[in-house]
């Protein structure tokens, strides 16, 4: 607790507002906003002013204010102080709960304080906590209410802002308040001229106390402000203080704008509703409390005629409709439901309109019906179309049903009765009709199926009636054409489907007849004129069907094939089918295409009226066969010239195919011989060796080839020397499964080789004789002749000896030459 200082001392030291809390007219408590001290108003002044005069004057003034709850300004002057007290009731109508703003201004020097006065008589024994609570409540009230206070001191030019002002205008609490110029800059530009004008009016005293304007905050938000202004003057009528209470009304303003917009939309909606909106009393006259302008456009009666009671709305409703409709409306309103009724009204110009009235009751808290609100729509045209629709519905050839939400039949037409046979209103569709998704599927109740499936247009479904008879149809199902109303249309295609199937079968038969898998199909007459050519004639013959149709087949046929083609064509009897041997047709570039054809005589079939030529392009096969034949012939030729016989040994089944060579080379009659042809005729001396060798080759999984040369006994018993080569094919385990053998008769070859060898030997012998024997005597003769020519008597060899030597050598030479001749004759024999 802080020592209570005098109020003037407080005014001297405190820059912030202070708050007085008053418990009754004579006992005031002072509280500093930060709760640093509190105390009795009277005490302060007693302490500060011992003469009590100032205290009494203040007391008296305050008491008067409190009791009268009025605005008053009291100025108390002492020799050293000049204090002005301003009181301002915040809630003058609150009786004894009135609260005041009180400002205490030290006019002696700059300084002022704020006073918050609690209701009189409420706090007989206020204590410090209560003061503090009140102070906090004051600030909380400002904060919650969004109220800020500011003051402008004319004498000093000082400006004061309450803390709430700082918050509202987004100014840092430690900042100085705005100057007037700064403040003006913060005002929304659109509001600035008004505000400036306002400030002028303040200056000349003609100002209005209340003003609304917009401010732009530092964060560029636009906030709406409402300001209550109070100008205080001194006794000389000079303005001394301008005080403003500012409230942030942005939320209210925006809400109002929204409300205005909503109202505008509402009115726009009402005026644009294509019908009459109304509120009427639930009386017999349908007394209109409100009826929209649309009523005039629709009926020709202005709204005020109904609202001022000039005419009643009930009076323009057809009487015969009123009775039934009223009963229905009453029943709906009794159960507090909405109603929908159709009735006719008479327009001012005598026209009759069908209208649809949708309405509902507005009830008091006690449940009593207060008003009826509704919208009346002109449904004359809709009724007209409904009637047309009904006419179409009834006369449609399609089975049509209007179904409820659960598949109950609401309406059906005559076609539906005809198709479904047992249809009746209110019956459930699922009890009457079933659908089969496909031929083998189980029949499902139709409405149940429709709930799970969307029928595809153009698809034909099979249906079953209750009596298990079936029909085919296409479905169209429109869901919710009206609330809880569905439209089902079934087009009966049973007959059409049967016809189509007949047609399809006919087409299938036709296709089967004319195509049969052929590459090209022609239809021609007996003279060969083409009446049809299938599309792929272009691909095969490079002639379009259009080009070839109407021409004669003989134009394209190879001349060598004309005769056989014509003969076959002419020979065909009705429905006869014959095969035509391969024949050739020429392509435009001159290349021949080989065809194999089946001719079918369908001259008696009206859809064909001709002979069908199903043709298969066999050019590739023919060419291949020719190549094969050539190759085969060459192979056979090679075998013949090579003197080889071939055998193909199926080892698995132990079957041997003996090639023609065994007949042609070895002379065996193949029609008589079995698998043992070869083994039976191996020369007995070679047989063991050969069979052993071939067994070894067969059992060696790595052996691919076999070779042996041995003697083989020909069919005529003569012996042939053969070279036997074989190649084995083996399975994955290496077991030989096939052997191809080639047997070459090399008898002649071997004999020739032997002769050649002998001839060579003979020739060598002759050469040797010539080299050694012939030249020996010759060389001797030459040597002796040389010696003779020397005529050297010292050699020790006499001339006669030399001559004898020459003679001997000559004779020897003669004999040798004779021998050579004899050897040459031997060579000839070889």
């Amino acid at each position: 607790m802080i020592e209570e200082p005098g109020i003037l001392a407080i005014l001297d030291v405190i820059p912030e507002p202070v708050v007085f809390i008053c418990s009754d007219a004579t006992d005031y408590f002072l509280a500093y906003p930060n709760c640093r001290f509190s105390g009795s108003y009277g005490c302060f002044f007693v302490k500060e002013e011992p003469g009590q005069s100032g205290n009494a004057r203040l007391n008296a003034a305050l008491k008067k204010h409190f009791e009268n709850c009025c605005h008053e300004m009291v100025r108390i002057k002492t020799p050293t102080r000049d204090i002005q007290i301003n009181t301002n009731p915040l809630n003058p109508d609150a009786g004894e709960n009135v609260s005041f703003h009180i400002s205490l201004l030290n006019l002696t020097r700059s300084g002022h304080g704020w006073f918050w006065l609690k209701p009189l008589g409420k706090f007989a024994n206020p204590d410090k906590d209560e003061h503090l609570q009140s102070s906090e409540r004051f600030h909380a009230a400002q904060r919650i209410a969004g109220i800020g206070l500011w003051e402008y001191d004319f004498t000093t030019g000082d400006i004061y802002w309450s803390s709430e002002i700082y918050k509202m205008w987004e100014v840092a609490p430690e900042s100085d308040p705005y100057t007037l110029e700064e403040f003006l800059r913060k005002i929304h530009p659109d509001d600035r001229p008004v505000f400036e004008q306002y400030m002028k009016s303040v200056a000349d005293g003609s100002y209005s106390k209340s003003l609304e304007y917009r401010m732009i905050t530092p964060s560029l938000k636009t906030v709406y402000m409402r300001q209550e202004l109070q100008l205080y003057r001194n006794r000389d009528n000079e303005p001394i203080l301008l005080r403003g209470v500012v409230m942030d009304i942005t939320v209210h303003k925006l809400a109002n704008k929204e409300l205005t917009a909503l109202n505008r939309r509402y009115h726009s909606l009402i005026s644009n509703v294509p019908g009459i909106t109304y509120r009427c009393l639930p009386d017999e006259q349908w007394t209109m409390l409100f009826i929209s302008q649309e009523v005039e456009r629709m009926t020709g009666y202005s709204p005020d005629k109904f609202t001022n009671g000039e005419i009643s709305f009930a009076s323009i409703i057809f009487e015969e409709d009123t009775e039934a409709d009223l009963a229905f409306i009453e029943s709906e309103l009794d159960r507090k439901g909405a109603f929908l009724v159709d009735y006719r009204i008479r327009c001012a110009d005598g026209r009759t309109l069908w209208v649809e009235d949708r309405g509902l009751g507005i009830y008091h808290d006690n449940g009593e019906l207060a008003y009826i609100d509704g919208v009346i729509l002109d449904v004359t045209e809709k009724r007209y179309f409904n009637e047309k629709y009904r006419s179409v519905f009834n006369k449609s050839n399609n089975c049509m049903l209007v179904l409820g939400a659960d598949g109950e039949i609401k309406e059906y037409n005559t076609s539906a009765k005809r198709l479904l046979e047992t249809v009746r209103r209110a019956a459930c569709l699922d009890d009457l009709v079933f659908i089969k998704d496909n031929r083998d599927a189980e029949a499902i109740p139709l409405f149940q199926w429709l709930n799970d499936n969307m029928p595809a247009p153009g698809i034909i479904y099979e249906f079953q009636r209750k009596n298990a008879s079936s029909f085919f149809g296409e479905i169209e199902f429109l869901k919710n054409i009206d609330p809880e109303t569905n439209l089902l249309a079934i087009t009966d295609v049973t007959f059409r489907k049967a016809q189509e199937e007949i047609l399809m079968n006919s087409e299938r038969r036709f296709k089967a007849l004319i195509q049969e898998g052929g590459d090209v199909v022609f239809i021609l007459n007996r003279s060969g004129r083409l009446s049809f050519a299938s599309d792929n004639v272009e691909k095969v013959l490079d002639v379009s069907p259009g080009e070839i149709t109407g021409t004669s087949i003989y134009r394209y046929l190879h001349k060598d094939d004309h005769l056989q083609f014509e003969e076959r064509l002419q020979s065909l009897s009705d429905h006869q089918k014959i095969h035509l041997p391969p024949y050739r047709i020429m392509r435009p570039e001159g290349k021949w295409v080989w065809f194999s054809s089946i001719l079918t005589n369908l001259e008696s079939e009206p859809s064909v009226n001709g002979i069908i030529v199903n043709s298969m392009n066999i050019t590739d096969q023919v060419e291949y066969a020719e190549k094969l034949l050539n190759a085969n012939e060459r192979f056979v030729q090679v075998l013949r010239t090579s003197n080889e016989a071939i055998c193909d040994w199926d080892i698995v089944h132990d079957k041997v195919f003996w090639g023609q060579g065994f007949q042609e080379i070895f002379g065996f009659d193949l029609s008589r011989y079995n698998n043992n042809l070869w083994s039976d005729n191996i020369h007995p001396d070679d047989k063991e060796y050969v069979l052993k060798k071939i067994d070894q080759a067969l059992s060696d999984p790595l052996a691919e080839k076999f070779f042996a040369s041995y003697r083989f006994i020909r069919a005529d018993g003569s012996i042939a020397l053969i070279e036997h080569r074989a190649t084995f094919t083996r399975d994955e385990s290496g077991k030989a499964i096939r052997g191809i053998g080639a047997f070459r008769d090399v008898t002649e070859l071997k004999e020739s080789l032997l002769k050649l060898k002998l001839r060579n030997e003979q020739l060598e012998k002759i050469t040797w004789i010539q080299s050694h024997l012939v030249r020996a005597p010759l060389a001797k003769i030459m040597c002796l002749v040389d010696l003779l020519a020397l005529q050297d008597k010292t050699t020790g060899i006499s001339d006669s000896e030399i001559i004898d030597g020459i003679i001997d050598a000559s004779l020897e030479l003669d004999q040798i030459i004779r021998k050579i001749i004899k050897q040459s004759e031997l060579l000839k024999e070889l």
Partner: protein
Amino acid sequence: MTINVLVVDDDPLISKLHKLWVIKSGLHPDPLLALNGKEALELLLSREQSTDPFLILLDINMPVMDGWEFLDMLAKQSFPFRVYVVMVTSSCNQADEDRAFKESCVIGYIQKPVTAAVLQQFSNPALYTR
């Protein structure tokens, strides 16, 4: 170094003639004679004490032991002297000449008839240093 010369030929007349040409060519003043390979081999074996090399003029086609057989036998023998062979034959077969030169001791191949001039080419002592 003296080179002994041995003429091997089955024809006595030819042997005489060859002896004559050996002498005339200066190869040796008194060459030895043998009628076949066998005689020639025996003669060589009988000259074991000699170390002077022998030049043998060897005919091929001879009875008892022909020239080829003689060469085979010669290859199997070891002598204290070196033996050089010149084939002297009437054969004009190239195969005979090729065969002859396969023997390491053969240094020449002369087709008959022989002349002194032909034999003179074997008078160079350098031939007998190999």
